Structures are given as structure tokens and as C-alpha cells.
């Protein structure tokens, strides 16, 4: 298990907290914990989903990021208007690598940026007229769009524009779904509330569109993939496995997804939920309203994948269960070869993670398949139900940090000395300059997919490529290196 004992880890947390003023120290102490398998409920050991302390470096996003960036943005045949000043849309444009099939600008709009570009006069006199004009322009220039969503930026809520009225009016005029989303950035403490608001907008404005329409032929094997955003093609790598099992994937939410798929989702037999944090709301709603069961699954690493595939198959009849075993058996030799190749190169290496959504717990199994150990993990914007699930996955006496600050993360890394860090772009260069191999685990560092069997092979290769890269022992200038210098590691307390 972890190389640090419970007491050592606890002492480390205390030491890191020393620099804070009394109040901040008390506050931050609640967000850092040592994992203990005996604790059943995370609320007893960790506080989450609270406002970040002013003055620290936090890595969180805003509600707009959660709605436009995560949930709505990847729906490819809708146009998502970033309603407000130009920056929010422009600086988040196309950065998430949620792949899709289609001709951008003709029938798909994923990587484009549509904004109402608010100026002073729009703030003073209101922007509803501008929004109307914008929707008219979109209809002229991009007539093949299947719908529009209006993603509010901060000023919309502050000046009290009535985007719902404009959306209703224009929606009736063009006979298309136009969805107003009240995801102003100032709402909530992180992007997490944006997911919730986006889910509620889906529920209120699109989900029931085909409730009275039974022309679509359903089968007994219809499923929907929820909470897979197709980063680097993730959803495709997952989808083929489900299809091989004999299931019919009706909808992908929302990576490479369409509005028509979303409208058909209430007719499926089972909702498969990958990212619990961003889509549990809509899954619960569909369970209540349409009686569709939902289950969480994990497609990272062969061990977890086999578990998940069997769990999915258990919902269906024996023909599916047989095919499920066939799929697992088919990929087993391939996976064994991957593990045989990379495990000796990665065995025993320590990893620290700090990501969002589902990955801080879901990728643990994939690392373990490669013989690596996750010694610390944390979420940017998780709630307590995420930590409930994490406690079981993590080793005893490992570090868990919620909304970790830049300072804390650096200090933890200096002391725990992991061999690899998985986090985002904002952390990447700090740690690389400290001489620690780093992978961006939000966007798969421009690689991917990492889901599914195909993804695991890429995952293993990428981890090896990063960790065993010869550059890591060239960080010290040759004239400064003594003869027996090994790969430099960042020293503690510098």
C-alpha cells in the first residue's frame, strides 16, 4: 500500500496548513484528509462543494464552463450562443477536444464560437434585441442547425435580460428548439452548478419533445450513454463495445451527440452513466418520470471494464450476457499483451491525481492494471457523493484533497514525491519544471481515447512514454551534475 503511514500523511497535512492564517487554516483543514476505509460516509472526513478561499490559487471553473463547456457544448448539431461579452466564448472555444463527425459550419458547429459580443450599450439598454437579431442571423447563415441554446454569461443575470421570452418567441417563429440556459458564471461555487443548471434546461426544454410520438421503433436492447464527452474519441471507443454486446446505443450525451438523440433518450431501456457528477440529475429525472433505470459504469482499464460490462449485461437477457463474455474474452489476449509490455516499465510507480468529474476515482483501476499506485487524488468540484465513491477505490492512508490550492498541491508533491502527476494544463508546467513527469488528464494531453479496450492500449503507451522519457534526467546542466547524479527530484521545503 502507500509508502506513507497514516500518521505521516496526517502530519504532512498539518505541516502544509501551517502557513495559512488561523481562519483559512481551519477552513482548509476540512478539505484535506487521509483516506480511511473504515469511514463509510465522506461527510465525516471531508467537506466539499464550498466556496474557494479568497486569495488562493484555485483551479475551478464557473457555471458557464459547466454548462456551455461540458454539457451543452458537445451537442454538435445545435448552435450554442455565448450570450454576453466576447471573451468567455472565445477563450473556451474548441479547447476540450470533444470529437464529432460532421462538416463544421454546415451541419455541425462544435468548434465554432457564436457570441453576442456585449458592449456598454447592451449592458445599459439590455441585450434582448441583440439576441433576437443574432438568432435571425444564425438562421440565415446556418440554416441546417437543429436548434439553438443561449448560454448566459454573467452580465445577463446582472442586468436581468429576459432570454426565456426571446427564446420562446424565436423558437415559435422558426419552429426549432431554442433553449435558454441560466448558467451565469457567478452562480454556485464551481462548474458543478453549471452541470446542474444545464441538466435542468435539458429536462425543461428538450427531453419531453417526443413524449407523445411513438413512431420511433424501440427495441429491447436500447441504451443511452450519458456523461461521456468523447474526449479524443472516448465515446466511440466505448460505444463499439456495447454494440458488440448486442446493445443498440441510441444516444450519446453529449460527446458527438445530437438534439434528436437527446429527445429519443426517454425511450431507451437503460441509461449508462459514465460521468456521475455532470449527468446524475437528468438520470434521476428520467428514472422518476419515465422509469428508466440508470447505472454507473467505468470503462478505464480491463479489470474495471470487465466488471462494468458484466454489470451492464446483467440488466438484459442471456443472449447479451453470452455476447458480453465473448467480448471480454476477445479482447483479453490484446489486453494481456499490453500489460505484459508496459507493466515491467511502470510497476510500482506512484501517481498523484487532481482532476474533475469522474476521473479521480475512475482511472485508479487503469493505473492498478499497470502495476502503478495512486497515492493521492482529489476533485476540483466534487460533492460528497463523489467522495463516498472515492473512499472505496483509494488505498488506505492515501491523501485526498478537495479543491486543492496551488500551494498545497505543490507542497504535497514535494513531500510525497510521486513519479507521475495527472492534472490539467494550469498545473502542467509547474510540475514539469520541478522535474516530475506530467500528463494532462482533462484532455488526455492531446492524445486519446482512453476509454474502452482500444483506449487502454493508448493509455498504457502514453503513461510509459511520459514516465520513461529520457528528458527527465537531463534537467540538470551537465557541468553542474556530479558523477553519480540520478534523475533530479524536487526537494522538499525549497
Amino acid at each position: 500500500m502507500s509508502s506513507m503511514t497514516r500518521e505521516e500523511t496526517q502530519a504532512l497535512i498539518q505541516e502544509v496548513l501551517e502557513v495559512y492564517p488561523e481562519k483559512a487554516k481551519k477552513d482548509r483543514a476540512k478539505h484535506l484528509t487521509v483516506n480511511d476505509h473504515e469511514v463509510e460516509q465522506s461527510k465525516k472526513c471531508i467537506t466539499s462543494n464550498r466556496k474557494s478561499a479568497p486569495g488562493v490559487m484555485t483551479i475551478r471553473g464557473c457555471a458557464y464552463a459547466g454548462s456551455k463547456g461540458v454539457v451543452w457544448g458537445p451537442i454538435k448539431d445545435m448552435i450554442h450562443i455565448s450570450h454576453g461579452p466576447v471573451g468567455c466564448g472565445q477563450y473556451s472555444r474548441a479547447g476540450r477536444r470533444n470529437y464529432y463527425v460532421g462538416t463544421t459550419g454546415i451541419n455541425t458547429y462544435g468548434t465554432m464560437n457564436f457570441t453576442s459580443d456585449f458592449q456598454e450599450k447592451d449592458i445599459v439598454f439590455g441585450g434582448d434585441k441583440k439576441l433576437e437579431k443574432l438568432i435571425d442571423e444564425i438562421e440565415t447563415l446556418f440554416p441546417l442547425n437543429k436548434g439553438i441554446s443561449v448560454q448566459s454569461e454573467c452580465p445577463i443575470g446582472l442586468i436581468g435580460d429576459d432570454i426565456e421570452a426571446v427564446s420562446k418567441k424565436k423558437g415559435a417563429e422558426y419552429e426549432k428548439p431554442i433553449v435558454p440556459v441560466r448558467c451565469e458564471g457567478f452562480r454556485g461555487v464551481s462548474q458543478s452548478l453549471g452541470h446542474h443548471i444545464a441538466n435542468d434546461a435539458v429536462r425543461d426544454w428538450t427531453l419531453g419533445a417526443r413524449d407523445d410520438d411513438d413512431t420511433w421503433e424501440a427495441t429491447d436492447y436500447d441504451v443511452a450513454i450519458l456523461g461521456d464527452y468523447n474526449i479524443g474519441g472516448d465515446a466511440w471507443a466505448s460505444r463499439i463495445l456495447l454494440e458488440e454486446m448486442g446493445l443498440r446505443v441510441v444516444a450519446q450525451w453529449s460527446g458527438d451527440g445530437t438534439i434528436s438523440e437527446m429527445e429519443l433518450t426517454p425511450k431507451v431501456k437503460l441509461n449508462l452513466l459514465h460521468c456521475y457528477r455532470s449527468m446524475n440529475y437528468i438520470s434521476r429525472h428520467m428514472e422518476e418520470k419515465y422509469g428508466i433505470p440508470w447505472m454507473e459504469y467505468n470503462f478505464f482499464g480491463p479489470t474495471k471494464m470487465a466488471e462494468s460490462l458484466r454489470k451492464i449485461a446483467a440488466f438484459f437477457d442471456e443472449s447479451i450476457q453470452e455476447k458480453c463474455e465473448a467480448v471480454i474474452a476477445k479482447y483479453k489476449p490484446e489486453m494481456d499483451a499490453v500489460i505484459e509490455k508496459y507493466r515491467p516499465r511502470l510497476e510500482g510507480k506512484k501517481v498523484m491525481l487532481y482532476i474533475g468529474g469522474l476521473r479521480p476515482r475512475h482511472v485508479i483501476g487503469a493505473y492498478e492494471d499497470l502495476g502503478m499506485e495512486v497515492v493521492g487524488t482529489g476533485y476540483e468540484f466534487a460533492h460528497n457523493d463523489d467522495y463516498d465513491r472515492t473512499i472505496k477505490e483509494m488505498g488506505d492512508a492515501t491523501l485526498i484533497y478537495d479543491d486543492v490550492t496551488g500551494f498545497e498541491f505543490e507542497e504535497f508533491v514535494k513531500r510525497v514525491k510521486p513519479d507521475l502527476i495527472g492534472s490539467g494544463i494550469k498545473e502542467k508546467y509547474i510540475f514539469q519544471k520541478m522535474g516530475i513527469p506530467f500528463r494532462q488528464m482533462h484532455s488526455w494531453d492531446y492524445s486519446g481515447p482512453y476509454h474502452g479496450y482500444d483506449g487502454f492500449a493508448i493509455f498504457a503507451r502514453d503513461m510509459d512514454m511520459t514516465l520513461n522519457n529520457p528528458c527527465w534526467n537531463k534537467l540538470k546542466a551537465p557541468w553542474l551534475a556530479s558523477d553519480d547524479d540520478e534523475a533530479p527530484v524536487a526537494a522538499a521545503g525549497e
Partner: protein
Amino acid sequence: MPSVMIRKGEDDELLFYIAKKDQEDPIEKVETDTDDAWGGVVTLTDGSEWYIDPISPRPSFPTTLRFKRA
């Protein structure tokens, strides 16, 4: 008076989900649990107690109900 969604878990136990608190715990005991009524004091596995006037006929789960602290 939080809205609580009650759904069936994997082992057919009832789960008590309070969205605002992200709390989801199995129900341990229900005061009135007959074929034609459901409610009263509901005890969760974490020890907390909630109250709802018994509903008749018994609701079908999943459903959302409003509970009070007992």
C-alpha cells in the same frame, strides 16, 4: 422541508436522496409500511430521522416526496 427522491437501489432497498445535500442513504426503517399506506417516521442507516404524513395508497417508487425533520 427538503424534496427527497426515493428510488430502489441495487439490492431492492429504498434509497433516500436529498438533492440539496448530495446525501443518498438507504432507508433502514419506515414507521408505516403496509400495502395501502407508506410513511411516518423514516429512519436512515446513518441514524437521521425524517417524517412524512403516511401516504395512501402506497406510492410507487421512484418518486419525489417532501419530508420534514422528525
